[in-house]
């Protein structure tokens, strides 16, 4: 899918200050397809610069098509790239952007919309910048993709806004869920010389440049970079705490920012080119680009979701009023804005949950995210009690009661007595068989698993579990609801632990086995953290609760006893006890790290052969969105394939493993 080339369209505009070169970046598409810089775009920029350099101008204004400035380099051209091509790409950008910087008259970047990566960098090569207060995306996300801003970004950002801001903008924001600046925030941070309203943004930008010309205004003097070494040293320490040395790009970006304090711009350009030649063809950038594609494009398309017309969901039921249930109720309330009823065994439990929901809604008002009227309306939609009759008229009921098959089966039997035959019956079970939950129902075709991850507000994944009976309309409805909840669903077949919990449990099995054999918690934590995952296994265990973790272990042990052995340590922790050392035979952290990788490769190959998901990409999407696995591992299978672990353990890359039999 080739994206249309972005062209640099030059027009001459006569003003009182003299003729202005007005350059528009435009790929001829609407805002949904942003401008990007591929080879064709750079050729177009070269032609525009050839024309501009031949004439006398009072100034230049560079802007984007409506609602978009430029989203940076065209990442579709990055796959399978050689170090030579990566270096050439860097050189081409430096040469062209450098020519903008060298123009002998004042230049202004009028940042009218999203500016990312190369879009930010081209703007930094202008003398001045205006930015619209409506801009929501101003960022250099390269580090998230295993890269560095390599068209002058690492050199010009510190010169413009100082080392502290540069570290935050180039290194820390991309690693904080790809945080981006708004127009006002970018102005506040010093990236722009003027913050203008969107309504007459370009008119006012033209006027701003004319005034600057008339006043003979000079670009701001470079920031004082005396503190750079110290700022970068502290940033490195924070980075060690976050990624444990696992990610290359953020460290390389810090090196380049540090260099900016002493290098000439040309020296900085060369250093960026070296970094691009190293990073772009490298495994982490290639894995990150793969992960970006999965999360931003593939998952949003809904791979494998049937085309059926979803049913309207006008009333939602939540069975249970516990911690998970109330979080889910709040999410449905906020995103669907339909009546939500909760039911639990006692009115006290229900009232407690309703009070919690109303308090959360009130908190949103205090943060300015909801109006008081809207909050009143949302609160009025939540109700609950102890009777099953409350669920009459629901279009979807999601149960989130205690993880026990008989309890949940009873819930579904009771529900079927009060709801219509079309009402979707969903379960948030994490380890039980959804098929078994639906057994014995008159209409098992409307049973589906919707497995959310805790904390619900943070983790975007929902495992959408289909049983052999689940029909297309039910799946389509659950998918549509998930989208409205602003979550991303991955379709999985009903199998113990589905994907995320099964993989984390297998990883946990390596950890508890090590603890059973005398390794310390620090050692097992380090063995896993070395991957670059956000949470140590010991912290994860506390979050889930040792009791629940052990329950999951038992479920999986029943299915695959040899891969999920019961652990004396886990049994003890679940009872509130201490780790139990069965035999003192600790392994090194390196050995443990390898054992974790091999266990992951093995388990994922089973998941794929069983057809729990269609392909390795689905496993990676689950880990990226449901467990916070980092982009630079490409979830995990990309990393396992790149490093040869898959080959060693499975005999082939996981990307090539397909279901051994057709999934039910």
């Amino acid at each position, binding site marked *: 899918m080739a994206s249309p080339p972005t062209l640099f*369209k030059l027009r001459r*505009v006569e003003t009182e200050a003299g003729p202005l070169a*007005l350059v*528009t970046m435009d790929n001829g598409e609407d805002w949904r397809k942003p401008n990007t810089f591929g080879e064709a775009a750079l050729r177009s920029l070269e032609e525009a610069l050839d024309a501009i350099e031949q004439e006398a101008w009072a100034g230049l204004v560079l802007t984007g098509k409506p609602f978009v400035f430029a989203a940076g380099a065209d990442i579709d051209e990055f796959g399978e790239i050689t170090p030579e091509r990566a270096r050439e790409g860097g050189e081409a950008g430096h040469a062209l952007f450098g020519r903008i910087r060298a123009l002998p008259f004042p230049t202004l970047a009028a940042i009218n919309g999203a500016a990312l990566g190369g879009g930010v960098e081209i703007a930094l090569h202008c003398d001045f910048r205006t930015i619209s207060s409506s801009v929501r995306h101003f960022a250099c996300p390269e580090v998230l993709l295993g890269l560095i801003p390599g068209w002058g970004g690492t050199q010009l950002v510190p010169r413009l806004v100082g080392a502290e801001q540069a570290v935050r903008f180039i290194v820390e924001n991309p690693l904080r869920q790809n945080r981006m600046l708004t127009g006002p925030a970018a102005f506040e941070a010093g990236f722009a010389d003027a913050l203008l309203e969107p*309504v*007459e943004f370009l*008119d006012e930008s033209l006027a701003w440049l004319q005034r600057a010309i008339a006043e003979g205004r000079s670009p701001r003097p470079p920031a004082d970079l005396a503190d750079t070494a110290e700022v970068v040293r502290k940033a490195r320490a924070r980075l060690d705490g976050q990624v444990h040395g696992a990610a290359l790009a953020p460290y390389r970006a810090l090196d380049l920012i540090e260099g900016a304090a002493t290098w000439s711009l040309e020296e900085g350009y060369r250093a960026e080119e070296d970094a691009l030649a190293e990073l772009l063809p490298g495994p982490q950038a290639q894995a990150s680009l793969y992960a970006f594609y999965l999360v931003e494009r593939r998952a949003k398309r809904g791979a494998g979701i049937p085309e059926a017309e979803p049913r309207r969901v006008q009333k939602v039921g939540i069975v249970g009023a516990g911690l998970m249930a109330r979080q889910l109720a709040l999410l449905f309330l906020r995103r669907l804005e339909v009546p939500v009823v909760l039911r639990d065994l006692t009115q006290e439990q229900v009232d407690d949950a309703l009070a919690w929901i109303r308090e959360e809604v009130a908190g949103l008002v205090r943060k300015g995210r909801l109006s008081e009227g809207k909050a009143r309306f949302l609160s009025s939609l939540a109700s609950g009690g102890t009777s099953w009759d409350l669920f009459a008229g629901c279009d979807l009921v999601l149960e989130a009661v205690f993880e026990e098959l008989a309890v949940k089966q009873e819930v579904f039997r009771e529900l079927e007595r009060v709801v219509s035959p079309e009402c979707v019956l969903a379960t948030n079970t994490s380890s039980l068989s959804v098929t078994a939950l639906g057994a014995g129902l008159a209409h098992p075709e409307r049973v589906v698993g919707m497995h959310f991850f805790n904390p619900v507000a943070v983790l975007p994944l929902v495992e959408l579990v289909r049983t052999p009976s689940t029909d297309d309309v039910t799946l389509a409805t659950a998918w549509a609801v998930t989208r409205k909840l602003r979550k991303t669903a991955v379709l999985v077949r009903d199998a113990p632990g589905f994907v995320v919990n099964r993989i984390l449990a297998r990883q946990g099995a390596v950890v508890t086995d090590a603890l059973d054999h005398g390794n310390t918690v620090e050692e097992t934590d380090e063995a896993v953290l070395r991957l670059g995952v956000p949470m140590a296994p010991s912290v994860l265990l506390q979050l889930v609760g040792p009791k629940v973790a052990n329950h999951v272990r038992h479920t999986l042990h029943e299915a695959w006893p040899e891969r999920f052995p019961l652990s004396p340590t886990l049994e003890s922790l679940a009872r509130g006890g201490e780790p139990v050392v069965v035999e003192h035979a600790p392994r090194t952290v390196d050995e443990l790290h390898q054992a974790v990788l091999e266990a992951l490769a093995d388990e994922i190959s089973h998941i794929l052969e069983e057809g729990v998901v269609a392909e390795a990409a689905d496993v990676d999407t689950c880990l990226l969105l449901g467990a916070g696995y980092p982009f630079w591992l490409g979830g995990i299978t990309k990393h396992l394939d790149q490093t040869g672990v898959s080959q060693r353990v499975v005999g082939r890359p996981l990307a090539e493993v397909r279901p051994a039999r057709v999934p039910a």
Partner: protein
Amino acid sequence: MARMLREVLYVDGARTAFGRAGPGGLFWKTRADDMAVKVVRELLRRNPTLPPERINDVIMAATAQVGDQGLTLGRSVALLAGLPTSVPGFAVDRMCAGALTATTAGAGEIAMGAADVVLVGGVEHMGHHPMGEEVDFNPRFVAERLIDESAAVMGQTAENLHDAFPHLTKEAADAYAVASQRKAAQAWENGVMDGIVVPMAVFTDEGWTLAARDEFLRPETTMEALAGLRTPFRAGGRVTAGNSAGLTDGATAALLASEEAAAELGLEPQMRLVAFAYAGVQPELMGLGPVPATERVLERAGITVDDVGLFELNEPFAVQVLTWCDGVGVAPDDPRLNPYGGAIACGHPLAATGVRLMAQLARGFRDRPEVRYGLTALCIGLGMGAAILWENLHARG
């Protein structure tokens, strides 16, 4: 309860450049409502002593009140222009007299004491809304011969004028058109338009550019060139693209205030609204409309045509102006008539045109302090005419 009517003053007016309607035109990729927003904001910028919350109503005209001209334009433009939500607005339609009707409606609010300050204007993006395209003519019009079929096509009503008044020849019409182009070119050269036309950044297939000059200007127009043009409305006709106004995209807005509010807010009013009149004529002779409207407004003001020192008349068709000249006794080359050229040169974005006439009259008043009264008038589809009589606040003596 006895009450005093209040004087209504014209403070300021602005317009966009006028563009050629259609895919090749300057405004093809620009929304009509955004064009109206541009001129409204220009007025606010030019009159900084006016607190926006003191605007009591925003009245916007459009003939096609759908698409980017739908959604109760006056209100939506107010919101889009960043006026406080406390400022209301509405939309009006009287075809070519839309902005003029917005003006008299706003004047009514001010005179009644219902408002102190009103923003009025009009917009017509004839590229996005070709005339009559979204209209469903009632078949009774034709079945019951309520109107002649030609009344629906403005060019045909112009041909009808030539038929009805055979002494108004094509040569006279062409000569008028050449003069209009010449006067407009002079006005642009002399900077007259700089105070009226506000440049606007517009997005096009070739990138952003500045719409700063009317696209229809043809200063080089000659009688010889006009003689050879096609007559699109009938074979052997007399109305051509050269002696009529082209299909146009444009927006206008003006600021009206009561005498008291203007003084209180430190505004600089240019004209006083003396009287206005609307009139109806046979729809197929639509262009006759301004004649009875002019007669009526002069009668109401108690003055004669000789007391009027400036006429800003719309020029949808040269023959329509000639008909008016004939009817009220003003020579087509009278220097009082359209001194800065007219719609034949700049274009005629239907509902927007009225404020263009006022803005040019206000400029004419400033240049001619010896003039006391001026008239803005235009003809209206379905057989109507509109006229507003103004007094020059810069007049000497």
